[in-house]
């Protein structure tokens, strides 16, 4: 949002800046014809066949961008060259694209497929730059594509590509914060990466996306510490800053014992008593307070961090040195902090900007740890050539360092400063002297005398500043210094600076008893000049008058009256108010109440002496070295430095567990397979010695299927299953057997119903369905097997020969275990559902990029349910049939929903209230023991353009019951999630529905000729084709048709050739045509072609269908 407004600003701004080249510039909108001409020129060059011309044109365009000129109208001409062979042209096109994609989102999408191709390039530099550009294009519609690309790149063999993936994470996050959870998964994976190249970048991503997830660091902590020295310098800074925060949450304060020292002495005193009884007693006593007294022992991990960062103090990079310095300041035991002083002093030789920042931090440090910089006092001496801001900061440090022993040296140094030509600096020096004088009693008189001498300085600013400082000093011991006050009283004749005049008047008023003769005379003079004074001076004149009236009313009564009268008619209301108030207080009248009695007390109360403090006091509550510390204000995105914990959290969380290694080895086998793929072969040689991005999570295991998508999804699945398995292991084993069998069987059963329901009940269709079910059953078998494999559970796969009877037995057993008699069919059904849901824990969570093949389990579940209901003949087949061949997704898990579980599926039926909406059928199951009421939706959050038709409220859902409802969502032809709250009478749950791209369309019927005609019109950029190798079980027409229609809601188009299968559909919202063709060639080779005017839909569909066919 801010970005777009900023852009508008710029447009506005650019027209106001006049630069010489301006008239020629296409963006200026000056002389239209000439602009037009020049454009033509560039466009022509871009359209030419010669790379050199293209390059020349791109160079000119980039030069325009560099000058901040608008070149956005060249977008179509430039974007055409995105696939140019010449690498320099290509790079410049990338530069252009990243700059303008946000403004020309539709056109930018034209380039996406090029990058997607680039992501597969054998050259790692090309893969990386494709990802860089793709992730830099700030167009929300490609968020899913970006997500995919990042996930894929995160397991790339090249560490450079993985580094780029880490950089892409914050980009995607800033574009769509909704992706946070998925991004965290990627971060977690990359954090486990063992290459130095990736470490800095992924920690950066961590800091921007999920700095609160400190738990992700535990397992990587030691690795990060050990790698640190070899990480590139920028990464070092980020890692050190993050580890500082981490250490503050995990370790104990190394300086905590200082306060406990006395207690320690006590103990030795006791210990010296030889009496045994007493010792025993002591033991007893110490039982309770023991933890407190326990001598502090530094966690070895804490020590590791300190040890491994220390050498970096010698880095040439000032930012690294500063990062280590702040780490030591915040984390090290007091005695060790000293080492950083030397390094920081060295930085003072660097550029003045570096000096500025370092001095700010040194100033903060010197307040707490003065001692460590004392040896370097002279390094902070000021040269006349230093910039003023550096001088002032050095002065601050010198002042902070001043103590009884070095004060004389410092004051001598200050004396030279006062002679400086730089008056601002002199003023700062005078204040510094004042501060030294207040802090160090011994030199107070010396300083005061020195300052008084300055009162005769020729420069008024110097005098004024001295007066102000003297005033503060005198407040500490006024009685001794009446002659100074007299001296200052005389200054009122000459000194004009208002602040100084006001200070003098205040002094005289406050200590009028010390100068009884002069004070009334000063008031007389002031009364004379009252009208010409500045406001602050006037207020002090009134003050002086009041105080004199109270102490010496004889001499000053008339004068006071006069001043008050003048003030009464002053232009400034503050002054008028003050005069009225004071008159009431000091001049007793009948009306004035009790207050006037206390007037003297009010005005002449003893006032506490001012404390002259460093402006850097307490600044160290901001992490040193941070922007927030420098500005002394919290900057956006600043992470507070937490306080030390009272007791150290469990240190074992940082232990890296053994089982993970074994897992690793099994994964390595898989990886080898992956390496064999021709696709990586070239580049992988170069990156041989570096380790791959493989991580602790199992996600990589999935990639053997061929694509990162599946990999990561199955990764989630296995993780979840691990959770689930703890409690329900036994159950699940049974379940597994049961389910598989049921699936095969029930599908058989279901067939007739399906037939009657289906819209086109041709024989072919039926056969296809039959086929589909069968193959699905087969696949789910293998799926569950692989699941087990991943969980490294050693259960044996069930025998296929078991019949349905044994299945029933199992069911009964379970019911018995749950000790709930099957009273009625519905109940039974729901119970069935419940146990199945337990199984559900094994399923892949519906991630936004759900691929059809991952949801077979839930699919089978739906079939299962159906079968049950059929056999029980209770539920009408009509309500359930739409689910039959469809995947259902979990919307709300039983655990999270506190007994309420919700699943949804895309019913693929027209949504009658609104044809532009996708129908989503939801199934609510109440697994809780109490009933749920008022199920409804609230707070629907959608991307712009999306609409939702809510399902009718379900008023009552008794315990154990199941209900279904249908809602409609207009996804606007995008795979963006619809987020809403699911509310019951007691709770609200945040849920979201994200459609696979295949559900965003509805089938249309086309003839072969129509199909060809339409396809002819959707050529070029609208056509995407991919070569593929068909899965072994998918080599016949039926299987292909079945898999494609499962992946996408398309209908088959009749076709003369038996080597081709064609499908057609329209997107639900815009009705854009989607055409898909699968042409088989010899053996398993095939080609998939998708024609769709919506590029993004097209690309995503290709991905999904490809997966469906190759798996």
């Amino acid at each position: 949002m801010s970005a777009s407004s900023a852009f508008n600003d710029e447009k506005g701004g650019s027209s106001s800046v006049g630069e010489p080249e301006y008239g020629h510039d296409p963006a200026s909108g000056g002389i239209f014809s000439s602009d037009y001409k020049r454009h033509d020129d560039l466009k022509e060059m871009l359209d030419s066949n010669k790379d050199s011309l293209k390059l020349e044109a791109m160079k000119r365009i980039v030069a325009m961008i560099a000058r901040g000129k608008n070149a956005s109208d060249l977008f179509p001409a430039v974007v055409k060259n995105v696939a140019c062979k010449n690498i320099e042209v290509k790079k410049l096109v990338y530069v252009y694209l990243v700059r303008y994609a946000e403004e020309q989102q539709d056109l930018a999408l034209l380039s996406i497929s090029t990058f997607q191709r680039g992501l597969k390039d054998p050259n790692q530099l090309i893969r990386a730059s494709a990802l860089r550009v793709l992730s830099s294009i700030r167009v929300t519609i490609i968020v899913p594509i970006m997500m995919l690309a990042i996930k894929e790149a995160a397991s790339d063999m090249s560490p450079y590509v993985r580094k780029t993936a880490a950089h892409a994470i914050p980009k995607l996050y800033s574009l769509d914060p909704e992706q946070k959870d998925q991004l965290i998964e990627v971060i977690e994976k990359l954090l486990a990466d063992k290459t130095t190249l990736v470490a800095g970048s992924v920690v950066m991503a961590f800091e921007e996306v999920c700095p609160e997830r400190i738990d992700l660091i535990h397992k990587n902590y030691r690795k990060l510490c050990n790698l640190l020295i070899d990480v590139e310098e920028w990464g070092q800074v980020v890692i050190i800053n993050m580890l500082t925060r981490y250490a503050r949450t995990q370790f104990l304060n190394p300086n905590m014992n200082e306060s406990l020292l006395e207690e320690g002495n006590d103990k030795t005193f006791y210990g010296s008593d030889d009496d045994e009884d007493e010792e025993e007693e002591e033991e007893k006593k110490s039982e309770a307070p023991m933890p407190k007294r326990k001598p502090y022992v530094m966690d070895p991990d804490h020590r590791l961090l300190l040890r491994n960062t220390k050498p970096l103090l010698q880095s040439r990079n000032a930012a690294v040195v500063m990062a280590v310095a702040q780490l030591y300041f915040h984390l090290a035991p007091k005695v060790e902090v000293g080492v950083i002083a030397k390094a920081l002093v060295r930085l003072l030789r660097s550029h003045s900007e570096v000096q500025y920042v370092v001095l700010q931090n040194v100033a903060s440090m010197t307040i707490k740890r003065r001692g460590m910089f004392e040896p370097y006092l002279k390094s902070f001496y000021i040269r006349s050539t230093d910039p003023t801001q550096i001088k002032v900061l050095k002065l601050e440090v010198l002042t902070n360092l001043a103590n009884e022993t070095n004060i004389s040296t410092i004051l001598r140094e200050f004396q030279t400063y006062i002679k400086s030509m730089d008056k601002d600096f002199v003023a700062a020096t005078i204040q510094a002297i004042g501060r030294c004088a207040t802090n160090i009693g011994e030199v107070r008189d010396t300083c005061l005398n020195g300052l008084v001498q300055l009162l005769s300085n020729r420069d008024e600013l110097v005098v004024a500043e001295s007066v102000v400082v003297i005033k503060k000093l005198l407040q500490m011991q006024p009685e001794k210094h009446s002659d100074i006050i007299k001296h200052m009283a005389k200054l009122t004749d000459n000194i004009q600076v208002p602040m100084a005049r006001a200070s003098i008047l205040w002094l005289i008023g406050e200590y009028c008893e010390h100068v009884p003769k002069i004070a009334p005379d000063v008031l007389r003079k002031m009364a004379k000049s009252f009208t010409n004074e500045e406001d602050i001076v006037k207020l002090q004149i009134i003050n002086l008058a009041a105080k004199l009236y109270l102490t010496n009313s004889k001499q000053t009564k008339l004068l006071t009256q006069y001043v008050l009268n003048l003030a009464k008619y002053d232009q400034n209301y503050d002054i008028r108010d003050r005069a009225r108030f004071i008159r009431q207080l000091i001049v007793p009248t009948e009306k004035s109440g009790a207050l006037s009695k206390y007037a003297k007390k009010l005005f002449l109360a003893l006032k506490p002496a001012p404390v002259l403090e460093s402006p850097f006091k307490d600044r160290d509550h901001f992490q040193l070295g941070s922007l927030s510390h420098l500005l002394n204000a919290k900057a956006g995105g600043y992470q507070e430095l937490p306080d030390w914990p009272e007791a150290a959290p469990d240190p074992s969380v940082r232990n890296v567990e053994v089982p993970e290694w074994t897992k690793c080895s099994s994964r390595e086998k898989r990886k080898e397979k992956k390496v064999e793929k021709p696709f990586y072969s070239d580049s992988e040689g170069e990156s041989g010695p570096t380790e791959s991005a493989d991580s602790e999570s199992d996600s990589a295991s999935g990639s053997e299927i061929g694509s990162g998508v599946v990999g990561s999804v199955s990764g989630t699945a296995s993780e979840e299953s691990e959770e689930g398995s703890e409690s329900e292991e036994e159950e699940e084993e049974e379940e597994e057997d049961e389910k598989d069998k049921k699936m095969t069987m029930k599908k058989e059963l279901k067939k007739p119903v399906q037939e009657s329901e289906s819209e086109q009940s041709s024989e072919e269709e039926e056969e296809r369905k039959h086929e589909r079910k069968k193959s699905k059953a087969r696949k789910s078998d293998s799926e569950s097997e692989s699941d087990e494999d991943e969980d490294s559970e050693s259960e044996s796969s069930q025998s296929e020969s078991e019949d349905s009877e044994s299945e029933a037995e199992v069911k009964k057993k379970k019911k018995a275990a749950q000790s709930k008699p099957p009273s009625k069919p519905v109940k039974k059904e729901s119970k069935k559902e419940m146990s199945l849901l337990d199984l559900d824990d094994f399923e892949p969570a519906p991630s936004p990029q759900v691929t059809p093949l991952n949801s077979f389990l839930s699919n089978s579940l739906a079939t299962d349910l159906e079968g049950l209901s059929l056999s029980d003949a209770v539920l009408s087949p009509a309500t359930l049939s739409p689910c039959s061949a469809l995947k259902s997704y979990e919307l709300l898990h039983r655990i999270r929903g506190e007994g309420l579980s919700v699943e949804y599926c895309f019913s693929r039926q027209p949504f009658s209230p609104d044809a532009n909406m996708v129908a989503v059928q939801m199934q609510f199951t109440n697994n809780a023991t109490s009933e749920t009421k008022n199920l409804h939706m609230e707070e629907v959050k959608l991307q712009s353009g999306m609409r939702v038709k809510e399902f009718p409220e379900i008023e009552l859902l008794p315990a154990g019951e199941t209900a279904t409802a249908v809602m409609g969502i207009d996804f606007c032809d995008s795979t963006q999630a619809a987020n809403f709250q699911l509310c019951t009478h007691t709770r609200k749950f945040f849920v979201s529905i994200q459609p696979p791209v295949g559900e965003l369309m509805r089938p249309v019927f086309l003839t072969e000729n129509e199909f060809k005609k339409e396809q002819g019109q959707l050529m070029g950029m609208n056509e995407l084709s991919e070569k593929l190798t068909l899965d072994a079980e998918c080599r016949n027409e039926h299987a292909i048709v079945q898999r494609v229609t499962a992946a996408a809601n398309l209908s088959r188009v009749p076709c003369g050739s038996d080597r081709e299968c064609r499908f057609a559909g329209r997107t639900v919202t815009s009705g854009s045509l989607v055409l898909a063709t699968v042409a088989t060639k010899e053996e398993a080779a095939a080609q998939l072609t998708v024609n769709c005017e919506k590029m993004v839909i097209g690309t995503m569909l290709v991905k999904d269908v490809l997966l469906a066919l190759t798996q």
Partner: protein
Amino acid sequence: MIHSLFLINHSGDIFLEKHWKSVISHSVCDYFFEAKEKAVDPEDVPPVLQTPHHYLITVHRGKLFFLSVVQTEVPPLFVIEFLHRVADTFQDYFGECSESVIKDNVVTVYELLEEMLDNGFPLATESNVLKELIRPPTILRSVVNTLTGSSNVGDTLPTGQLSTIPWRRADVKYTNNEAYFDVIEEIDAILDKSGTTVFAEIQALCFSSHNPRLLDDVSFHPCVRFKRWESERTLSFIPPDGNFTLMNYHVSSQNPVAIPVYVKQSISFFESGPCGRLDITIGPKQTMGKTVEALMVKIHMPKAVLSANLTATQGNYTYDLPNKVLVWDIGKLNPQKLPNLKGILSLQAGAPKPEDNPSLNIDLRIQQVAISGLKVSRLEMFGEKYKPFKGVKYVTKAGKFQVRT
């Protein structure tokens, strides 16, 4: 991290902008211009400025401002260090870092910036890596490129980017292998009126080995192996290709520092007339038997000084009226005949007598000696079958050498 970069010249024109995230209007620089107005000297513009929505972090290099815009918390030194690195890279590529050079090579500059940062986070800053990605322009190459149509952009990932020694290209081959070491020591000192040393230390660039006691604080190029230094006080490293700073060291103020020259000076202004008198003599002190060369004295005069009518026994003097700087270029210091500058300073009529006395900044150079007494005792090369040429050169210079008056 770094959101955008603007390059601004001294007259306040933004002549280049680059955005790594969404575009930020250049009107954001107005806050900087405001601060620049206020500051007397460009050095006095605060490096970090806060605006309502952004933070501006600026460095000043070679009459240019490198202004970066950040939106969230980031260590300021991180940005400052990076911006200086950008300026260093420009210098490395184009020989200088000036407005005209950047404008002439705007496309290369843009390509460089693109490679140096990704999403505001540094990607490749090592000169060796960058030079493989984007080849620096040379006359020969530009001729070849126009003839053959080949480009300046590399199409493979530089090996350095992947290795743990990113500063060195793979397979560097030369007909002659040479290693030169310049040990450049700089004396930072403040002398007071009477010539006593208030503060002095030695700063050095480059290289050393075997004098561990003296070296107080050291910083290294990343190529130096820390461990080896810690244990044996030997510098062991795989050198980058080309010029680089191997190490910086610092001989602390606790050690006595030899001050090579002494200065006798008196600058005084008369109470009565609008003039003053100046008399400066410089002589050798501890020069280790070598000649002091390139001696130069620079004095920032009080504002009231209008002109200087002086006579120098050696060298020339100039008085820059607008900046009020008196420069006396002496050259070689002859111990037999000490250079002297004497004469009258005339003041603005009616102006009060300046209270402050200007300080003298001294510049000098002594060849073939490292004033700290440091020596490179041994230089060995491994992994080469033949004996490469090795050379060590010592120079002592004045750093921030100031004499107060």
